[in-house]
């Protein structure tokens, strides 16, 4: 489905990002997988999975990464903005530092990556940008004032970028995962997890692969007339 397409996936060392890289590569794409720490991608590197180590909040790192892709491939067809951080705190206990950290990674970095990627895609007059948001960015959630705001911002950016870039045949969409079985939720105790699962219509956690498969649809030509959309991958979860 993605034969000869070149993709960049941020936050690819584990969980959803890792699954997206693997699904894209399995479907014929050349995938640049990003992580912060050198060596974190060792177990997924292959002939068509190329590691790119940089912090998404570091502009020079982003620039070097895009320079490398330009030099090696001369094009970029797919960008998946997956890297993100989640820090919970109740109202009254949220530090300025945490607010800035969340917005720098989840919002400002995404905006910067969209700017860099769109230059490639404007040139090609084609491309697909997929921003990973969250169900809480749509509905909000207790204890996640700043995180949910950052994911809401991702959704707004998606809709605006879709409007601006449609004229270049660049599509911009978002996936809003519900509760996915990743490290992000590993701190939740068994009892609480049972409670959370009870609130999901399909009575199971989502898997990284559930999200990756939806990304595959948005990255592929099957969705060539789909832009500005937010697809919930949440098994009918209630938050």
């Amino acid at each position: 489905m993605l034969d000869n397409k070149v993709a960049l996936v941020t936050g690819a060392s584990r969980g959803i990002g890792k699954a997206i890289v693997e699904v894209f590569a399995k479907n014929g794409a050349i995938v640049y997988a990003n992580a912060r720490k050198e060596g974190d991608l060792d177990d997924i590197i292959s002939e068509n999975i190329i590691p790119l180590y940089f912090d998404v909040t570091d502009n020079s790192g982003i620039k070097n990464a895009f320079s490398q892709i330009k030099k090696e491939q001369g094009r970029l067809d797919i960008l998946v903005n997956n890297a993100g951080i989640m820090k919970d705190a109740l109202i009254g206990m949220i530090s300025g530092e945490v607010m800035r950290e969340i917005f720098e990674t989840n919002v400002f970095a995404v905006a910067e990556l969209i700017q860099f990627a769109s230059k490639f895609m404007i040139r090609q007059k084609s491309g697909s940008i997929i921003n990973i948001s969250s169900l809480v960015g749509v509905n909000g959630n207790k204890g996640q004032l700043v995180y949910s705001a950052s994911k809401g911002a991702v959704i707004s950016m998606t809709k605006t970028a879709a409007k601006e870039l449609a004229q270049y045949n660049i599509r911009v969409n978002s996936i809003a995962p519900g509760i996915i079985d990743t490290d992000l939720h590993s701190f939740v105790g068994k009892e609480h997890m049972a409670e959370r699962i009870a609130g999901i219509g399909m009575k199971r956690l989502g898997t990284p692969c559930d999200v990756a498969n939806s990304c595959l649809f948005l990255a592929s030509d099957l969705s060539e007339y789909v832009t500005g959309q937010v697809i919930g991958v949440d098994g009918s979860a209630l938050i």
Partner: protein
Amino acid sequence: MTNLQKYENAFIETLGIEQNQTTNLEYQAIPEWDSIGHMSLITALEDVFDIMMDTDDIIDFSSFEKGKELLKKYDVQI
């Protein structure tokens, strides 16, 4: 082809203008050099000179002359 010719050609081809229009041309002074034309121009210049411009420089690229000055930062002498 000199760097000046390459630079001029990028304007002529991406904005669809005549060579005599490039002198002293400023951003948004003609309908062709609007924000959409600007991004196409920047991508064309990046291709021609094999560079990747910083966002701040793309914003500061306010005229034909200013662009020449900015490109010096990328070791492109015009």
